[in-house]
């Protein structure tokens, strides 16, 4: 059984610069997990400003908004990773996801590419 760990970052306004963890902390953490034999897969999500939300109303109409917003403290129900050419294709998949209906939303966040 695998688990996903969700990392909630503080916003730029509330982050305490003196208490920020360093790249070294992350490397150490990663190393610890690997040495414990529990590491399966991990990705860093790109900066929060790259996120986008899709909502589908009862009439099937789609609303795509810049997200997330302060008032939407939604609990993430799960995730998929898909490989598609661009954001519009990803949004199409998001709009077809059942999680986008019934007042829910699917937030599409690109995975950061390093060293490209």
């Amino acid at each position, binding site marked *: 059984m695998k688990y996903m760990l969700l990392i909630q970052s503080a916003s730029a306004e509330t982050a305490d610069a003196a208490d920020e963890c360093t790249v070294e902390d992350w490397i150490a953490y990663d190393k610890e997990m690997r040495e414990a034999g529990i590491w399966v897969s991990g990705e860093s999500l*790109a900066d929060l*400003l*790259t996120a986008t939300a899709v909502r589908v109303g009862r009439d099937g109409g789609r609303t795509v908004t*810049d997200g997330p917003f302060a008032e939407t403290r939604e609990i993430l129900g799960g995730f998929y990773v898909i490989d598609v*050419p*661009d954001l*519009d294709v990803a949004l199409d998949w998001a709009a077809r996801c059942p999680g986008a209906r019934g007042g829910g939303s699917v937030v599409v966040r690109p995975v*950061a590419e390093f060293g490209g």
Partner: protein
Amino acid sequence: MGDRAAGGGAPVASVEAVFREEHGRLLAALVRRFGDLDLAEEVTSDAIEAALTRWPVDGVPPKPGGWLMTTARRKAVDRLRRDQAFAARLAILQVEAERAAPTVDVAQGDLPDERLQLFFTCAHPALPAEDRGALTLRCLAGLTTPEVARAYLVPQATMAKRIVRAKKKIREARIPFRVPGADELPERLPGVLQVVYSIFTEGYAASSGPRLQRLDLAEEAIRLGRILRRLMPAEREVAGLLGLMLLIHARRDARTGPDGELVLLDEQDRGRWDRTMIEEGRGLVPPALTGGLPGPYGVQAAIAALHNEAATLATTDWPQIVALYDVLLTLTPSPVVALNRAAAVAMRDGPEAGLALLDGLADEPALRGYAPYPTARADLLHRVGRLTEAAAAYREALGLAGAEPERAHLRRRLHAVEQPGA
């Protein structure tokens, strides 16, 4: 631009004006070529700068667009040689862009018009709403960042940050440069039109500041509307939007008095309306309304046209205007549309009828804190002689109004009801 005489001596200012049009075309073609907005912007500026130096001396080349494109591509190659990591990332983007839609080689001809894709990218719903207009002005109207900052009355550094942030999202979230397919278009086109119209309304009724109208901004919006109309001649709402903007903008000179104060439609000197612009706007109403259910811009353009066609307020075709507001209410039900409809009903059936409709809107949350609502009530209360209530409503509106000319107008009307006959 090929008809300009070669051989130099062209005044630099006019050369720059020509480039404002060419800027968007070149940028769009380069974005298509490289799949990267930053690189495209950088080399577009470089190429135009080179043309500004060279053309007055060497003469305008026979294919100016091809010259600019070739120059820009050469600059891009230089940039990529300097920055290998960037080049590697770009190569991936390019391969995918080619896969999505093969690039046409335009070095030999003039530039293909690929601005429509850029319109859709800049107005993408995944971008923050407040950045879409700025990005559109920057990329498609060819405004510099300081010019965009001035247009929105924000500090240059703030605007620069917003544009960088928007471009970062386009790049890192990989918002595509493409025109949505026919199935998606009805969902996405309103967003593009909304961006252009919001630029227009910001220019037309500045949300703050000493001046009521920022005509340069309204004119940029009209210019963008014209480009869209050329790119999408079959889209009725594009015709409707351009028509609406022209019909409103035709009244610009009559809309402010000698001291910059607001002059409303009922008091405007209709002789100062721009007849040529009205004719152009009116010509867009039939294509906007013909062939199926009309859209909200087309209906609003039709309403504006009826106002512009009337010689006086009294001879305006109010029954037809009320009927169009009925249509608009079904298309875009909103308390603001209902408010405008009530004002038209007051003109058709008398102030009492309008007041009754306005009172029915009193509990609308969308109208709370919206100055036009108490202003409309005050005007009608004044007309039926309920002066104390009219004065109270004007005071309420004064507490809400933003731009100084609008406030001066309200003070004048308040004064008129407090001292009738003065």
